[in-house]
């Protein structure tokens, strides 16, 4: 469980990036943190594994305060996949890249071998085991970065902008993958601008603006609230836009799921035919 208690954070340059954030993420929850550029999303999640320590306030991971322990210790519980895979890839082969963290955490050679195999299979990278990560495409590099974190099976997974530079199929794979992780009881936090992706996943949505949380709740409610989204420079998902326009016809406004939308529209159409 992640607990953030009235956290303020200022960068050494004096910019106050977080202005009193309180948030609790329960085990097994799936949370999307959204907001415009510079809202403090990445700054906030960097507190979750201790990369940044609050200027005031408290951040706890499973009741352990992040100021009282090291990033390396926290990282075993909290896996953090950075936005740009090029900021972490350095090994000669994909399998060495994935084994890097496992070696840091002191796993035995046999366990490393098993976990690397598990991770490359999970993300469809097994044919690239001996390839240099620098030879792979952008999407594949992103998957290697993800695999290198998943390999130690962290309980909490943080993904910073996981959909950037991914085509539709990869996004769908990612969504499937997140759902699968969720059924295994993992806590997942994603930081993203991608409103359509969030609409499809329908997680809990935390909306940030200028270092503060402006809205927090079910995706269905937040992503169909034009006032809240406007503040954070996010547009409504397309399905929600249609249903906002149709609300005068007696249809509900808070629809973001395509399947749900289809069922509602079919009902109206069928009524008409009779």
């Amino acid at each position, binding site marked *: 469980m992640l607990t953030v208690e009235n956290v303020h954070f200022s960068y*050494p340059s004096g910019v106050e990036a977080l202005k009193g954030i309180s948030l609790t993420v329960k085990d097994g929850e799936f949370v999307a943190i959204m907001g415009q550029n510079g809202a403090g999303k990445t700054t906030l999640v*960097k507190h979750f*594994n201790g*990369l940044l320590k609050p200027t005031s306030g408290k951040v706890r991971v499973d009741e352990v305060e992040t100021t009282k322990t*090291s*990033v*390396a210790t926290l*990282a*075993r519980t909290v*896996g*953090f996949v*950075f936005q*740009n895979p*090029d*900021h*972490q*890839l*350095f090994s000669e082969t994909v399998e060495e890249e994935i084994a*890097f*963290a496992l070696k*840091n*955490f002191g796993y035995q050679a046999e366990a490393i071998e098993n976990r690397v195999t598990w991770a490359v299979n999970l993300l469809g990278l097994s044919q690239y085991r001996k390839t240099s990560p*620098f030879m792979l495409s952008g999407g594949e590099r992103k998957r290697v970065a993800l695999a*290198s*974190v998943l390999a*130690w099976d962290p309980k909490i997974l943080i993904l910073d902008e996981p959909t950037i530079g991914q085509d539709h199929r990869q996004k769908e794979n990612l969504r499937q993958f997140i759902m699968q992780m969720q059924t295994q009881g993992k806590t997942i936090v994603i930081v993203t601008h991608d409103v359509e992706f969030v609409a499809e996943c329908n997680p809990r949505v935390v909306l940030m603006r200028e270092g503060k949380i402006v809205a927090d709740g079910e995706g269905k409610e937040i992503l169909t609230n034009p006032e809240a989204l406007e503040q954070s420079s996010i547009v409504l998902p397309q399905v929600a836009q249609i249903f906002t326009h149709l609300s005068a016809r007696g249809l509900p406004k808070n629809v973001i799921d395509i399947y749900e939308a289809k069922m509602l529209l079919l009902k109206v159409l069928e009524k008409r035919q009779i």
Partner: protein
Amino acid sequence: MSVFDGLKFRRVYSPIHNLDPRMKFVYVCAVFAAAILFGTVMPLAALFLMQIPFVLLARVQKQWLRSLRGALFLAAFIFFINVGTTFFTNGYVLTAVNVESAFAMTLRFVVLVESFSVFFLTTSPDHLGLALEQSRVPYEFSFAFTTAVRFVPVLAEEAQTIMDAQKARGLELEKGNFMKRIRNYVPVLIPLIVSAIRRSLELAEAMESRAWGATKERTNLYALKLHRGDFALLALTIGVLALTVYVYLFVHIPLISQLLGFA
């Protein structure tokens, strides 16, 4: 990365920022020369103090202090190496004179860092490029130079992100003995170098697509002109040089330890 903070330019306006970069550069060179010429504490301390009015006038004291703090480690290193070598070569005796000369070496380094930092804190990369161009340096070189200067803060930021990314994968930079610690930086340096190369290739493409080098004779929207302040700085520079040469040749500067009666 705090050393780099002292080299990061911020666009503010002050009498120092408005000075001609060429004059500032000549002044910094004069300070450099003086710092190298003197090897004792007192003149070096005078040189050190001389920069402080500039820092205050330019209102960059915060960043300036940060760069000095960044240089602290190296300064301490220089101090202990100097004390150590004299200690061992003099047959395991440590005299006040030795400590003072080690301190002077350290102070010399600090003066160099300090004046360099003031120069970069108060000179925009654009101005620097202009100055080089107007000093008849070929545009290719001046462009390469300004680009390099401009990329320092970008690279520093990127290095921080990379360190964070690797720490999130359990890398502990401060762990192990000296050799191990150096090896710990491999996972940081490789992505940094790769991305710097990638960035430079992208920059080259972007430049070519915007017809870089299409005209041989370049003109500038802004041209540097010398103002009254610049001549004042020039006068100061000449004064510093003259005084340095005079003192160096004709004045005997006592050591502080001699004055205090230790030697």
